[in-house]
């Protein structure tokens, strides 16, 4: 198994190299000049030229890539054109809100969706099943920003239970942290609840017709344990897959939510960096996202082994 882990880790290297090259080239090919944006509307051509020279953007593309890649290999992500900080610091400052949001979202999604899905499978064909599945379709269909503004309207503006926007770091107290995070997390979780509940229902439903469920009943086991111990563990592999893909999509999807709720996370950083043509920051953030995707995929494969002893690498 350790060998497998090592092989998988080695396999991520070419993935990250390809991502790095593509991002670098694509940014250089998109219109818009970082130097002109930094210099402002009233700058002269000489001033812009000066900035371009300082940022190294007057070098040939290959040289620029060489410098960036060289720094990268030494663990140096470079310096932001726009924020005047090293990118390491920049990301570190923005990572907490994003991770908190993603984590809370997935916790809410899994803890709501899995029991709902199991219940729907157990009572399939009943009104409970129909309600869960109806909610699922709704969750898929309504866009995130609609849910977001709807929740803000109901819970923040009408009821006044939660603040409309903003973020408070965990270090400043858990109450305020969670109070500000809960609406965005619920907003984001809706679609994942829909997705995971559906997958759980389908997967558990299939398992419930297996012979070993009948065996468990023949032993006199109660339904609750049959569902959550015998059935769910067997149904886990597809569910884990969806949850994993959910986390990956979630981290990509924070760009929108963080904008709606004005949360200073990686999503906002990405948007700001793109608007400012802040090449080094964009490159670093995208590289980070790809690394996370690869890591999540690996984690999913490892989780399979946890649930199914027949899967061994």
């Amino acid at each position: 198994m350790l060998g497998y882990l090592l092989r998988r880790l080695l396999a991520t290297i070419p993935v990250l190299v390809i991502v790095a090259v593509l991002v670098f080239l694509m940014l250089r090919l998109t219109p818009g000049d970082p130097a002109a944006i930094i210099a402002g509307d009233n700058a002269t051509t000489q001033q812009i030229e000066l900035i371009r020279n300082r940022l190294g953007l007057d070098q040939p593309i290959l040289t620029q890539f060489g410098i960036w890649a060289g720094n990268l290999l030494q663990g140096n992500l470079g310096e932001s054109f726009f924020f005047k900080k090293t990118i390491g610091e920049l990301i570190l400052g923005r990572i907490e809100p994003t991770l908190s949001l993603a984590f809370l979202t997935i916790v809410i999604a899994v803890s709501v969706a899995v029991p709902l899905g199991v219940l729907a499978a157990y009572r399939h064909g009943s009104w409970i099943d129909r309600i869960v599945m109806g909610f699922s379709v709704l969750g898929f269909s309504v866009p995130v920003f609609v849910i977001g503004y709807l929740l803000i309207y109901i819970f923040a503006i009408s009821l006044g239970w939660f603040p409309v926007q903003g973020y408070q770091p965990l270090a400043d107290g858990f109450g305020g942290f969670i109070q500000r995070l809960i609406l965005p997390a619920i907003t984001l979780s809706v679609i994942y609840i829909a997705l995971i509940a559906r997958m759980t229902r389908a997967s558990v439903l299939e398992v419930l017709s297996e012979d070993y469920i009948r065996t468990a009943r023949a032993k006199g086991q109660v339904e609750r344990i049959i569902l959550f111990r015998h059935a769910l563990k067997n149904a886990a592999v597809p569910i884990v897959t969806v949850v994993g893909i959910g986390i990956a999509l979630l981290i990509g999807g924070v760009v929108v939510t963080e904008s709606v709720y004005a949360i200073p996370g990686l999503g906002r950083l990405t948007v700001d960096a793109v608007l400012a043509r802040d090449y080094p920051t964009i490159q670093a953030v995208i590289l980070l996202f790809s690394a996370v995707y690869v890591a999540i995929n690996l984690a999913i494969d490892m989780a399979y082994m946890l649930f199914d002893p027949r899967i061994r690498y």
Partner: protein
Amino acid sequence: MNAEQPVLEITGLSISLPGGGDRKHAVEDVSFSVAPGEIVCVVGESGSGKSVTAFSVMGLLAKVLKPVAGSIRLEGEDLLSATPQRLRALRGDRMAMIFQEPMTALNPVLTIGDQIEEVLRIHTELGPEERRARVIDMMASMRLPDPERIHASYPHQISGGQRQRVMIAAALVLDPALLIADEPTTALDVTTQAQILKLIKELQGRRGTGVLFITHDFGVVAEIADRVVVMEQGRVVEQGPAEQVLKAPQHPYTRMLIAAVPSLKPALRQPMTGPMALETIGLGKTYRSGGLFQKQRSVVAASQVDIKLRRGETVGIVGESGSGKTTVARCVARLMPPSEGAILVPDIDIAMLPERRLRPYRRKIQVVFQDPFRSLNPRRTVGDSIIEGPVNFGLAPAQALERARGLMSLVGLQPQALDRYPHQFSGGQRQRIAIARALAMEPEILIADEAVSALDVSVQRQVLNLLADVQEKFNLAILFITHDLRVAAQICDRIVVMEKGVIVEQGPTGAVFSAPAHAYTKALIEAAPGKSFGL
């Protein structure tokens, strides 16, 4: 023995079928009882209601099936009026059940020990140490090798026979009054079956357990039953002591069932002298896994297999699971490439031919598979399935359809039924369709891979007769793969016995059965159930 109170007493039980079925009741007016220490076999073909009866005792009927009349008493207690809680308390404790498929009856993601201990966790207050000790003890009395290791193993790590022993251990660990066994040996090899039957008999005798044993196999009945209940179409048609039912069956259905059990005594057959249809020389198949980074692993599934098959002849390959018989069949049909050796049909070696050059020969070799429920595409009409092959080989669809109509009559089905879908046919009818599909290619060699194993005995006999008919009509060479010695004895001209990937013995059927040369062949014949009754 019957002076005591019966463990199980079923009186006038009727269970309704939901509307739209072919009959109103799944079982109707069924009455019988099981005394302590007694083994009662309920025998019948599929659809006879024997399993429904068993599941109604456990309270595990599908929701659409409802008992509408009669009573079921376990040690005097009425089960039909018991609450779900009470039934749960009785299941696993006073009554226990083992099932047909040990492969699927155990939860694949929980350890063996955990699954046996579960019964103790549900029904007793024992602590973890005591539970473990008791389970290990129980496993040892099941003659499971190395109980400590198996306790920590998962189901996929042990053999089918061991899994069934585990199931029995879980069923008997609390000494229930009643054990219900639903075809517990049907999915096992004959030698394993013989061991499991012996084990059940020994354990229930020692513990005084009453056993309700569901089976379709009169051979098994002869081995194990004290009393026999014969069911047909949901009704009990005959019951009585095993001796009496087996030796002097009263009801025509019972007589038909007993007569349909193929005899172990082979019919006298003339040696075949027709032209050679197929010859394998040194055929072998080794499965390899692993790759660039992984350790290479290889499993020899078959090696040095030499078989000769003439036109008009039936050669049987018999053996247990893992013997390599199916591997040989698949290689001969070139459903997979062999690793070594030659397959002559009869003038060209197709063993290593690339697909493009192999194609013309594919027509000559056709296969009928074991499971007629899965070998026909459920979304295509049987007509489409039958004509697909000939059309692929260039026959005009209209002509192919004409041929399909003729074949349907030949296999005993209505030609109009070509427009129907597989689920509209019974298992036996589907197997006829599968034979028609194979014959549509006008093959010279037919491979029957356990083609009658999933069928009821009466249907099995019909399909075997059909195979004999078409063999004569088309001068077919048939390679008959089976685990069932009785069937092999009846239809094969020559027998090839395989064990662990190699041929241990081959010869004319009569010679192999009357004077088996190899120890394994002897063990196989010895293990065939029901021999003592002359079945």
